[in-house]
């Protein structure tokens, strides 16, 4: 009886919280197809907001800029995260290790306002000294990478820690040079984590408003900045259309990543089982 009650309460709670989590997404998808600007009433199906979206040059330009920024941020973050994770996992002792691990993790807890502000001050300082860099895409990428690297590091670090080092030692014993070991053994082993780090940094960058607001220059506006500008003014179903496209893309990417991970894990397990049998 008690167990039954618990089970029903549990199911109801799960359903309610999932409804809470998905309500805004469903709301935007439904109203992106609305025929009028009316927000609370669905007046009929239309694609006019999607059409408006393609004609909105600010949004389209912002999208391409954000895509570029996010792609470069993703790659830079994944590379730097691998370096940082490698240092933290493999080098137990070196000068300033505590400071290093503190600095890597700090962006995780620093408010974005502070990251943005301090990097803005650096950019302004550098500009006064060297006349470079202009505030714009480059400075935004730097800011996003600081954040993306910290998040990516957590992912790569946990993968590196659980990796079996015996295979690296075996490769070394068989005469492989350190860089060969890294590229032929270590890298393929942590590739899944690298991809996750890339995706995480890409998403963070593609979504970031605050750091971009601090670091962008005149006329340089990422997609979230454009949306933030619109959002402060009022209701605009064009944004719902953009949101719907984004939701569909993210769902496809995340679900296929999850399926790919599950499949390759199963494949690896099968291979290990087969290798053990023979």
């Amino acid at each position: 009886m008690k167990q039954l009650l618990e089970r029903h309460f549990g199911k109801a709670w799960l359903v309610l919280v999932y409804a809470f989590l998905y309500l805004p997404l469903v709301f935007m998808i439904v109203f992106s197809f609305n025929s009028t600007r009316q927000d609370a009433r669905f007046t009929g199906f239309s694609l006019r907001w999607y059409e408006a979206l393609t004609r909105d040059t600010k949004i389209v330009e912002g999208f391409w800029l954000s895509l570029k920024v996010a792609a470069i941020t993703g790659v830079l973050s994944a590379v730097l995260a691998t370096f940082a994770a490698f240092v933290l996992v493999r080098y137990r002792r070196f000068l300033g290790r505590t400071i290093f691990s503190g600095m890597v993790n700090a962006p995780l807890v620093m408010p974005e306002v502070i990251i943005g502000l301090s990097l803005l001050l650096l950019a302004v300082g550098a500009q006064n000294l060297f006349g470079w860099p202009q505030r714009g895409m480059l400075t935004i990428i730097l800011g996003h990478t600081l954040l993306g690297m910290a998040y990516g590091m957590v992912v790569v670090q946990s993968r590196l820690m659980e990796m079996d080092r015996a295979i690296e030692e075996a490769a070394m014993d068989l005469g492989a040079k350190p860089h060969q070991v890294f590229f032929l053994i270590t890298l393929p082993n942590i590739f899944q984590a690298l991809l996750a780090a890339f995706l995480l940094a890409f998403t963070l960058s593609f979504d970031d408003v605050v750091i971009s607001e601090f670091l962008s220059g005149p006329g340089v506006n990422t997609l979230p900045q454009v949306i933030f500008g619109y959002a402060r003014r009022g209701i605009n179903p064009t944004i719902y259309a953009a949101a719907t496209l984004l939701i569909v893309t993210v769902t496809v990417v995340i679900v296929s990543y999850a399926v790919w991970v599950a499949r390759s894990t199963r494949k690896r397990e099968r291979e290990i089982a087969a290798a053990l049998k023979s």
Partner: protein
Amino acid sequence: MALNIPMPGKRFVIGVPYGWLILFFFLPFLILLYISFVDMGGDISPFKPIWDPVSGILSLKYENYLAIFRTEEGAPLFRTLYIDAYLRSIWYALCTAVLCLIIGYPFAYFIARSPASVRPALLLMVMLPFWTSFLLRVYAWKGILADQGVLNRLLMSIGLISEPIPMLYTNVSMLIGMTYVYLPFMILPLYANLVKMDFRLLEAAYDLGTTPFKAFWLITVPLSKAGIVAGFMLVFIPCVGEFVIPSLLGGPENLMIGRVVWDEMFTANDWPRATALAVIMIALIVIPLALYYHYSSDPAEKR
């Protein structure tokens, strides 16, 4: 064990991320700290150098910090715009963390107790909204909570209310938005903790005649303390500095410290004041974090 295989590239491997962080994390922070101790500049430069170029005298200015704590008349009453904004930020962050805990704890618990085969799918469903744009999800709440929004219309059509309740641009809409955004940050550490719990302990307690409620309080909650604390910190800390959600869903009376820093920087153009506010904000975040590490880390883990 040959764990430390000599690597000729060790310097390079350490140097790249170290250099990057010194240049783009440590140096900017030093500049921030520096500007918080100087005078506001004239028309050309936003701040004056710390040393007087004529006399060469070095002078630290505490004025930026004092101004934060001083009321208009000069009496230190601690009820300034800035102090209010700090207290408000901490208060809303606390409320959000508590709300997330109340909603998230049973949720994480029931996921942890569901069959192992469905758990990955349930978790993926928590992560999915988390991966879609946070800005857009906050924006959607604007349309839901508006006076003529979906929620008010729904409540009116079922006759629960006769005229719309103003929800948008109040602390209600802001707390809904913050709880919504930060809920996954609470659920995930709680789940990671609860899923490792040995539920046979609960069965043993039942067998010995404990009520489920008592068993929950005496066994489940104490065992998941680490998860609760971790989730609480993960929600509380970013909420203190939250900028976007108060801007979109909060009203003018919900001014939070992130916004104040922004306004000082770009509207008032008072860089020294903005940086001093930021330095205090960092202190506000570092202190609970330091306490957390101090009390949470295992003595055995400390190196």
